[in-house]
């Protein structure tokens, strides 16, 4: 067990997100298969966060993939399994002495990260998976961000020299992924694909931020983790609530005008979306500011690519909000119920987290800067 500050904050956030998700799951999704899947995913992620050894971490990681073999018939079974096998291979090789074995071990761990995080060219399964499998379940799996955790907790401390070299390559790919998926989302109309692409794009900044090798940049990446996790989970919960009421939201043929009957769901969705792209007054602004400044010293390219990808994502997000909630009169809009009390309180919790965290970000940032300092020391940064 290793329940340090990184694990504590990650567990705290994840438990909050899990509670929000479970509270807002539509009734039709509350069947035993899905509930077991949720339990498995949550347990696996928490086990991975608390693990002190690569073996236990691998066990937790693998547990999150089990639902896709046991209970969920469709979904990103193969990419998740490939990532798990890469992690198992990396873990097994790590116990083998010798430089070659260590090199292969590290390579396998990096492959696991690329697959799990959906980094280019292995990113397509994320938007596809959201469309093909229960989105809330996959959202919880993705928002564990076990790929980033694997790098921070094991890859860098166990193999700092190899990690130092690999992270340059990895962050370059992450940066490319951020802009590439932002471009892809710009011309898509399918709601879940857009959400998946935006989630991948914004989450890529976490890996890119680690390359900064300074405390502000890595702290920014770790705070951005909070933002991406809370905002995308909130977006998926609000989306699923809408989809359960009106399935046409999956591929809107035009403007749906749902705000007239579901104004609170519209507001929740909009706040989560705007927080994801760094709206001032939300935690996303502070996170992106730290990432931005962290990149000044060591990685100016990130300083240019980050605003570009964020601008593209902002336009896509605004377009999605418009298509779902605006553009039709109340009489031409299907009558759907607004957020139910349980949904309202669950989503309001995440909104409060993002907004209060945005107004008073000091506490959250200080919680993340301690692990960031340790990582910088391991990477030999400033």
């Amino acid at each position: 067990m290793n329940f340090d500050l990184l694990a504590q904050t990650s567990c705290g956030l994840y438990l909050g997100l899990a509670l929000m998700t479970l509270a807002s799951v539509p009734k039709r999704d509350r069947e035993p298969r899905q509930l077991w899947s949720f339990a498995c995913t949550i347990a696996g992620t928490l086990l991975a966060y608390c693990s002190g050894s690569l073996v236990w971490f691998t066990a937790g990681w693998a547990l999150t993939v089990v639902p896709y073999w046991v209970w969920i018939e469709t979904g990103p079974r193969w990419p998740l399994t490939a990532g798990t096998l890469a992690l198992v291979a990396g873990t097994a090789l790590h116990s083998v002495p010798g430089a070659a074995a260590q090199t292969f071990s590290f390579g396998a761990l990096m492959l696991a990260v690329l697959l799990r995080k959906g980094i280019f060219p292995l990113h397509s399964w994320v938007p596809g998976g959201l469309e093909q499998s229960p989105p809330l379940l996959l959202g919880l799996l993705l928002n564990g961000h076990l790929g980033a955790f694997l790098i921070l907790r094991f890859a860098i401390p166990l193999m700092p020299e190899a990690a130092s070299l690999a992270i340059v390559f990895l962050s370059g790919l992450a940066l490319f992924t951020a802009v590439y998926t932002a471009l892809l989302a710009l011309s898509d109309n399918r709601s879940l694909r857009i959400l998946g692409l935006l989630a991948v794009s914004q989450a890529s900044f976490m890996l890119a931020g680690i390359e900064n090798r300074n405390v502000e940049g890595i702290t920014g990446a770790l705070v951005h983790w909070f933002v991406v996790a809370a905002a995308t989970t909130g977006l998926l919960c609000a989306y699923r609530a809408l989809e359960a009421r009106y399935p046409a939201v999956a591929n809107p043929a035009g403007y749906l005008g749902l705000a007239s009957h579901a104004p609170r769901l519209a507001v929740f969705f909009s706040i989560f979306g705007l927080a994801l792209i760094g709206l001032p007054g939300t935690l996303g602004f502070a996170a992106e500011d730290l990432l931005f400044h962290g990149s000044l010293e060591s990685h100016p390219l990130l300083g240019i690519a980050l605003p570009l990808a964020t601008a593209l994502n902002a336009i896509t997000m605004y377009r999605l909000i418009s298509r779902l909630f605006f553009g039709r009169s109340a009489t031409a809009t299907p009558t759907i119920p607004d957020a139910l009390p349980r949904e309202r309180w669950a989503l309001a919790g995440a909104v409060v987290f993002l907004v209060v965290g945005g107004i008073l970000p000091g506490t959250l940032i200080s919680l993340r800067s301690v692990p960031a300092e340790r990582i910088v020391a391991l990477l030999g940064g400033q």
Partner: protein
Amino acid sequence: MPMETVLLAVVVAPALSFLLLSALWLIGVELSERVIARLTCSVFLGMTAACATLGWSLLTTGATTSWDGGVWFHAGKYEFLLGLIADRLSLPLMTLTAVLVGLVGSFSRRYMHREAGYLRFYLLLNLFAFGSMLTLAAESFDLLIGGWELVGISSALLVAFFNQRSGPVRGALHVFSAYRIGDLGLLLGVFVLHYLAGSAEDSHLFPGVWPMQGTTVGPFAGAMTGLLFLFAAAAKSAQVPFSSWLPRAMEGPTPSSAIFYGAISVHLGAYLLLRIQPVLAAAPVAAIAVGVIGVLTALFGTLLHRVAVDAKSSIAYAAMTQLGVIFLEIALGFPRLALLHIVGHAVVRTLQFLRAPSMLHDYHRVHAAAGGHLDRTGEHFERLLPEGLRRWAYRFALDRGFLDVLASDAVVAPVISFSRWLGRWEAPPKAACTPPAGEALGVLKETKA
């Protein structure tokens, strides 16, 4: 009460009003129209009084009021400092904002009566006022970005106020896209300031009292910053080549058009350039670019104004013309004149926008008082230009300078085509899974026809 606290209260008051109204709505409390309007107007009345107090202090003591909020957050060597300043540049515009937003809030009590989005309108008005105050009073450009972006999002949401129709929704997407692309200039400009000048704090970059400040920014960094900030300012102030969003923004309610596109929001670009006036003075390349953009916009605006067929668009193009002149004044190094021009122009345009729905009535009253139709004025182009050129100019103005077509064909369509081409590698194409080329950035196809 210390002046620092008064300054803080002026900036924070609309944010508190916004949060209070939002929280009450979220927990299900339904406020009457009267309560919403009175709360908002009381806030702006208080802000006006507070600005007057700050102004009196500035006049009598000559000292700039500043509020130091210390470190907002920090990590490693980086600290985000919270600081506000009410100096000779920001205070007149803060006062103008408090007065005009309060006035528009009061006017809207009746204008927006029984509109479905009455509360939404006042919420966005408060959010906009907070964003504007933050932009104007920010002591650092890092903080200014926060206010700048809040103005952008509240502006787009107000353009889409009548969201039952697709026109305002598409218009809002166009406005939002233009703003976000323009914001890149501001973000990268701040990046350059940090990278090359070591700070984005006003007091560090521009020591002295406005408008007699010096600068610690070097010529190269100054030119880079000036050009990047010009990019952002041009987008915010609807200057060429970003001006095509302005007529679409007229889809919003008239009071919001008055405060955004007649008074405050469009002038924030000019304010940004006034804030970096010492940099422009030290970097002739940037100053020349500001001047050229200003002249082009002034000519462009006056041409388009002459063919506009609705009152609000006509006023908006006239405002664009004056903004071009203000840009030119800044480029030529007349900051006091530019500030005076901004204040006067904002007041006149607000009045014009608010009276726009009654324009015919006003004309009839003026004509009746004058005892008949007044002689037509202006028409200089009509008298001075040869007919061939006039026809070309007419066509040019009718097509809004072909800027929409250029933006659609040269920027939006290639980006969307590229995006679709990439998408083909990702997932099999499905019918209706991609938006029309122009829709992705809010550029309407019908404008191309």
